């Protein structure tokens, strides 16, 4: 089990800058105010500093694992089966009308 120093004592290099945080937040469709962005930056730098240990391992000749069991691609016959009714599918929509989900206007 890894032994960690207290995070405030960690001299973590700044892998992620505040501009990186803003860029990632935009990709993730999240907003952070300045205080929260600083906190996220520190947290991410601390975590990335920790995961950097993976670079101790030489993995040049190792295949990546995306899925643990050897399951073949599953196919099925193209048969029509019952699915959710329009009413059920819209039952949790915050806004709907005319059998559709409603969103703010996209095209002027």
């Amino acid at each position, binding site marked *: *089990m*890894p*032994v*960690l120093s207290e*995070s405030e004592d960690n001299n973590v290099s700044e892998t*992620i800058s505040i501009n*990186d*945080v803003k860029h*990632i*937040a935009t*990709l*993730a*469709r*999240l*907003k*952070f105010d300045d205080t929260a962005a600083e906190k*996220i930056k520190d*947290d*991410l730098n*601390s*975590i*990335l500093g*920790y*995961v*950097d*240990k*993976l*670079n*101790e*391992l030489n*993995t040049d000749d*190792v*295949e*990546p*694992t*995306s*899925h*643990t*069991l050897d*399951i073949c*691609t*599953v196919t*099925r016959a193209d048969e029509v089966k019952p699915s*959710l009714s329009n009413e*059920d*599918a819209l*039952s*949790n*929509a*915050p*806004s709907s009308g005319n059998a559709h*989900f409603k*969103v*703010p*206007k*996209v095209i002027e």
Partner: protein
Amino acid sequence: MSILNKNIKELADGLASKEFSSAELTQFYLDRIEKYDDEVKAYNYVNENAINQAKAIDEKRSKGEDLPQFAGIPVALKDLLITKDMPTTCSSKFLEGFKPPYVGTAVSLLEESGFINLGKLSMDEFAMGSSNENAAFKQTRNPWDTEKVPGGSSGGSAAAVAAGLAPFTLGSDTGGSIRQPASLCGVVGMKPTYGRVSRFGLVAFASSLDQIGPLAKSAYDSAALLSVIGKHDAKDSTSANVEQKDYTKDLTGYVKGIKIGVPKEYFADGLSPDVKTAVDNAVKKYADLGCKLIDISLPHTDYALATYYILATAEASSNLGRYDGIRYGRRAEADNLRDLYFNSRTEGFGDEVKRRIMLGTYVLSAGYYDAYYIKAQKVRTLIKQDFVEAYKKVDAIICPTSPTTAFKAGAKTEDPIQMYLSDVYTLSLNLFGGCGLSVPCGFDSDGMPIGVQLMGNYFDEGLILNLAHAFEQATDFSRIPEKLKI
């Protein structure tokens, strides 16, 4: 014998022989929820129809109708299992009030077997956490000491069983989320092999790691529940096409000659002395029972936590992209579509969920994908190979479930990595994909429960359940906290 002490077979027999009715049994648990849940805070939602469903089964029974095996027995569900006619919130403000229009496969299999759903149990938001403190509505506490956390993310599922607020429950385990809270609450919790239980209707966290499993007072109850939900399902393309079986038949209690590996990496620095003593004693107990204990090494153990937190957050950032505020869940005020996405997600998600989405988005982003995500997938291969090699020599692996017993609420909330370390002994198994369970093996100096973990090869649930069963027969660590006994 009190209802609290009965196992699933005794409950089924008691109903069949009309020793008690399903309505009485259900009311017994509803009364306990009423009495104790203000303190334990396990339930996000109590099913108001449970008693009527129980009465309907009693009526069918009185007419002599054929009933399924477990008709009229209550169960409760982690609040990320999709259920109809009641909310599924994942303990997130984003899904407050969400009532899914369909039922997930595991829940549907429970219903077909006649179980009565008592309600939905609190959890860390979207299953991200190890203490239940990331729950948006109810931060479940440990029934053994309500100043302390129950573990997580299936904290409500573990606490409900420990407090006798349900005879057994279902949870989900992505990096230890069934086994760690089971250990901290003194119950049995099992993560089946990846692919054993359908994930259809399990709200996704990290799809290559998530698995539904039972939490219960005994290996026997866990085996019975797994027998019901462990079925191939065409609705989940990762569901393994293996035969459904009755795991209770594996519980012979005979374990002589079974080879159990003791991995040295799991007994190193950072393990609390009380936990180490209890787990060492469990190892000795298995030797007494005739098992062969063999020292083994899982050399890449030290890299599992880093690997896990890259892969799980990457998958989570992708899976949680679906929460857009349009089709279901929270929608924030916004003048345009772009702001609608930003505002809905920013208002709806809690801090830990945002932190993980951010980390996952970063490791998948252009320029960092190879350095972090592909690198972690490669190390996952090495971790998996450690287990593959180990299972050439041994039948099962024994180790602690969590490095500590339950800690005080608030003790680790400021330091994400310290919190993540609660799962350091459980998450390797998810990366490998095999099965594992935690079974109570003692108490620390404060009287808090300790669990020992048994890890098995792919689809070897029967073997580790039998090992747990044999251990239970030889020990006496499963109990309800004194103050919660009626």
